[in-house]
Every structure is written in structure tokens, then in C-alpha cells.
């Protein structure tokens, strides 16, 4: 895993997982926290590359264009007792400015990949509820529990499941 992006020399992954957010703003750090935990448990031959990013940068676009699948992990503002993760299938969309990392969103980044590099991967967003975005490290209890659910969902999506 590389922090805040990737390098051109890295081999293209089959699946790119991008957990993003500010780890110094409590629940906003849910994406990086989940991505870090996921990376620790992935086998070397999983074909998955995990990135931790402070913000979504335009430089991720060429990397996205090389992946077959992408999963973004972010936090969203919710009620303090909300532990329900949201899963959304994403399509490329020219909405927010992909060159402004303060406002850039996954759909715009996918649009940038498609527009400049010819293709965008199939993508989805897993969003974790958060209620405490104040200065500080570590997630609130409810968000930490939601992170565990998100991690389990990612394992389902990324790892072969045992047959029943």
C-alpha cells in the first residue's frame, strides 16, 4: 500500500480500493482506517491494491483507468447512533471539479479517468456513517462498529467465499 496515491511503476491492480478521509478529524478517518485494516488481511495474490488517501487527487485517474474494478470507502454525516453502511454503484459523472481535492468525489474522478484515459472501472462506494468530525484521532464508537461491518462487506466483495 502507498499513502496518498500511487506511482506509475506499480503494476496495474485488478481491483483498486481507495479509502480516503482526514485521520485527524475523528470519524472522517473511517475510510483510511478500513483500508488499512483491509490491507493487513489481504493475501499477496489477491489482485487487490489498497490505497489510503487524504483526499481524492486527479493523479488517481490514470490508475483507475487501468483497474477492472474500484471500491471507494468514505464517511458520511449521520445521526450519532446510525451504524448502517451505505453501498452505492457509481457511474462516471462530470459534477464536482476533479482538480479540487476539497470537493472532488468518486464519480468525478471516474469521469476524469474515462475522459482522459479512455475507460473507467466498474465502481462502487461504501460509505460509513459518522457523527463526530471534530479535531482528534480515532472514530466514535458507533462509527467504529460501522467500520467493522464495512470491513466484513469488503471481504465478501474481494475474497473468495467458502461454499456452503
Amino acid at each position: 500500500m502507498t499513502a496518498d496515491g500511487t506511482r506509475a511503476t506499480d503494476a496495474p491492480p485488478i481491483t483498486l480500493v481507495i479509502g480516503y478521509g482526514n485521520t485527524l478529524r475523528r470519524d472522517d478517518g473511517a475510510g483510511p482506517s478500513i483500508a488499512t485494516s483491509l490491507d493487513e488481511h489481504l493475501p499477496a495474490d489477491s489482485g487487490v491494491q489498497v490505497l489510503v488517501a487524504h483526499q481524492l487527487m486527479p493523479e488517481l485517474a490514470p490508475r483507475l483507468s487501468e483497474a477492472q474494478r474500484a471500491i471507494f470507502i468514505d464517511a458520511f454525516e449521520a445521526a450519532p447512533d446510525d451504524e448502517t453502511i451505505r453501498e452505492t454503484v457509481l457511474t462516471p459523472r462530470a459534477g464536482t471539479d476533479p482538480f479540487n481535492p476539497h470537493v472532488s468525489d468518486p464519480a468525478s474522478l471516474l469521469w476524469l479517468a474515462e475522459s482522459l484515459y479512455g475507460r473507467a472501472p466498474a465502481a462502487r462506494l461504501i460509505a460509513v456513517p459518522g457523527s463526530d468530525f471534530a479535531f482528534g484521532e480515532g472514530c466514535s464508537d458507533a462509527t467504529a462498529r460501522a467500520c467493522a461491518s464495512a470491513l466484513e462487506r469488503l471481504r465478501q466483495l474481494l475474497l473468495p467465499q467458502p461454499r456452503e
Partner: protein
Amino acid sequence: MSQRIVIDPVTRIEGHAKISLFLSDAGDISDARFHVVEFRGFEKFCEGRPIGEMAGITARICGICPISHIMASAKTGDDVLTVQIPPTAEKLRRMMNLGQFTQSHALSFFHLSSPDFLLGWDSDPAKRNVFGLIEKQPDLARAGIRLRQFGQEVIELLGGKKIHPAWAVPGGVREPLSAEAHKHILGRLPEARATTETALNLFKGMLDKHREETEHFGNFRSLFVGLVSRDGALWEHYDGYLRVVDSDGNILVDELDPRRYHEIIGEAVEPFSYLKSPFYKPLGYPQGMYRVGPLARLNVCSRIGTPLADAELAEFRQRVGSGGIVTSSFMYHYARLVEILAALERIGMLLHDPDILSKRVRSVGSINKLEGVGVSEAPRGTLFHHYHVDENGLIKKVNLIVATGNNNLAMNRTVKQIAQHYIKDIKGGKIPEGLLNRVEHGIRCYDPCLSCSTHAFGAMPMKVEVVAADGRVLAEQVRD
């Protein structure tokens, strides 16, 4: 009845600002003001923190140019510790700063400013942005991304991450350059250089088309302030002496130790902005207006000291200068590209330095002075950090003069000049959007970083208001 037109907020810049244009009864521009409407207060809340934390804290001032604050803060720490950092540490700090110049200038030129002069000042504002640029000039947009990525890779490979690396510290740097990173940066240099040369040729090819902008976008006499090298007054970005020149090329201040900045620079405050208005003390306020940044650095230096950039500097001065001095702020864009080339050549020189992979990168010291000053060049201009500490190294007082602040008086003068040239005989407050865009661009020339200069973030729709002197809103236009 006199009227006021407000452009709020100014778009495609870093941070929050608005522009007020004051109309006379005749419908002409009587005055213009650039307001910075955000406040962050780093100078105050850093008080009480250990000096060793300051590079990490002040880096948080900005996500675009954190490296500049890390450099100035680490240098201030060196001064307080009174240590001479290892030669390799200085070379690595320089390399990271040059990576910062490359990524920041690339963002400014390719993605923030070029939509105006590539797509047209009066083109559809809904498409006069990065989306329109990608549609019309995808190759340029891709090249811009790659060039910015290169600068960020230099930062990441040295500091461990692209944004806010806690790497430069008082006494040197935390980690040396690895052989793998050395090889990677060296391998990416030719492409970065080729992209920069392509952009330079593109911009030079447009000069004739933009004569009017060159003439009226911040084209006035002023002082220029910047660092030059101690040996030969070469282009400098990290250390050296302060030099001040005027629009005729006269050197007013030379070989000034940057620690003595306060002898020549005063700080004024205006009620309409959170941004300081620094000025050159001998001329007083506001006559002591000066400019910093790419244009100023090319005006104050004797030469750059690398072959490709020196050839470009000579052409720059010949094509758009007078007596070796370039006075139009529209040429900040041109100067930015020359500086990227200079940065890439300097990175190449540093990579070939025999000591660059040395592991000796940090000196150790304790609090030996209770006051320290660190001055370096940020992409946007000269950056001053000045700390007072107690015997335990806890911060007692902080003064920051940030590049964008240095240019405050010049930015106000620029928007006024553009408005007075383009906006005339306005009755009823209806002004074509393309003209207001030109006024905004006057600010973009300076690539201001308001997050830094006020010590922001968010979406920035543009709001234009025409307000009568009695406060009545005569017209309003909002662009999302």
C-alpha cells in the same frame, strides 16, 4: 448614484475571497478592492507549542503548498537551535522544495488559469473550466496531470507522503533519499522537461493574441522582492539573500540577511480584508507596494544558473520585458513555466550530486537562541516565519508573512487596473460576464493561496452583486 459591484467568491483560486468594484455616478470604475474573507489564526494558536512541532503544525496551513511552510519552519528551527544542517540535508530540502514548485505551478498553469486563455475570456462560463479544457485539449490536461504528479512524487518519495509530510525538521530531515527513489525521479525527469517545454512554446505562441491582457493585467511600476543566491545573485528558492529591485532594474536592497526582513518590510492591516498588506518600509504605506513570486524572482535574479532555463529567461526578458524587468502580472504565467524548467534542471543537478544518497541528514542541537527567523521561497513568493520561544523551546510569539500577503497591494492594484480598462459607462449595473472574468483572472495571475495567507476550503460558486451606495442590491447573478 455611486454603485458597488461584488464578485463573490473569486473562483479557481485557493481559498475564499471576493472583489468589490465601486462605480462612480458616471458608471465608471472609481475603485476596486480584493477582500479575503476567511480567517484561520495560526499565528495565535501556535503559541505554547514546542518548536519541534511547528513544521508539522504550520504545514497544515495549506494542502497545496505545505512544503513551503515545512521548509520555512524547519529553517526557523535551525536558527533557534543554531545548528548547521548536514550538506545532504540541505540538498534534499532543496529537492523537495523544487518538487513543490513543479506541482504547484503545474496546477496553476494547466488547470486553474489556462481555461481562460485557451478557451477564451468570453467563452461560455459553464465550459470555461477544467471540464471544458479536458473536452478541448485532453492532451494538455493529461500532460498537466503527469507533470503535477511528478512534483508530488518527488515530495512523496522524500517525505513519505504527498501532503503534509513530517520530514523536514529543525536540524535537517528525518530520512535520506533511497537509491530506488533516486532512480525513479531521474527516470521521470525527461518527460517532465518535455511537457514544460511544450507548455512554454504554447504560451509564447499566444503572446501576440494576448497583447491587451499583457498591457492591462497588472501592468504597473512596483518593487520586486525575492531571494537570490549568495554567490552571483542567481535564482534562488530556499536560502540566500533578500534583494529588492524597482521597475527600472535598480537594486534598492542587496545582500540583506533574511533574518533582518523586518528592517525593510512593514505590515499594514485594512478593515476590508483578513489579508495583511506588507509594504517596503522606506517608501511607506501604501507607496511601498511590492510583488513577490515567479515574476519577482525572475526580475531580481542575475540569471538562473541552468542552461535551458537561462535561455528561456533571456527570451522572457527580451520578449516581454523593458530593461530586463517585466512589469505585467499577466506574465506570472510565463514566469511560472520558466521556473518549472529551472526546478527540473536543478532537481537533475541534485540527483547527480555525489553526496545526495548520504545517510548523514540531521544535526542535533538544543535551544540556543530565543528567537529565530526562517525565510524561503514558496511557489507564490517569499515566505517568512519568525518565532520567539522560551528556554524550553515553547512558542511565545509567531509572525508569518506569507507569499500571497506580500502581493496584497499589487492584487488590489491589478483588479482596479483591469476593471478601469474593461468596464466603462455601466448604467444599471449590468456587466458582461466575460469582463468580470477578466477581473477575476487578475487575481489568478498571482495564484494566491488564501488558506496560507490568512492563516479554506469548500465549493466556490461565484456571486456577483451590484449594490448601490445606500446598500440596495440593484442586480445579482449567481454562478454555481
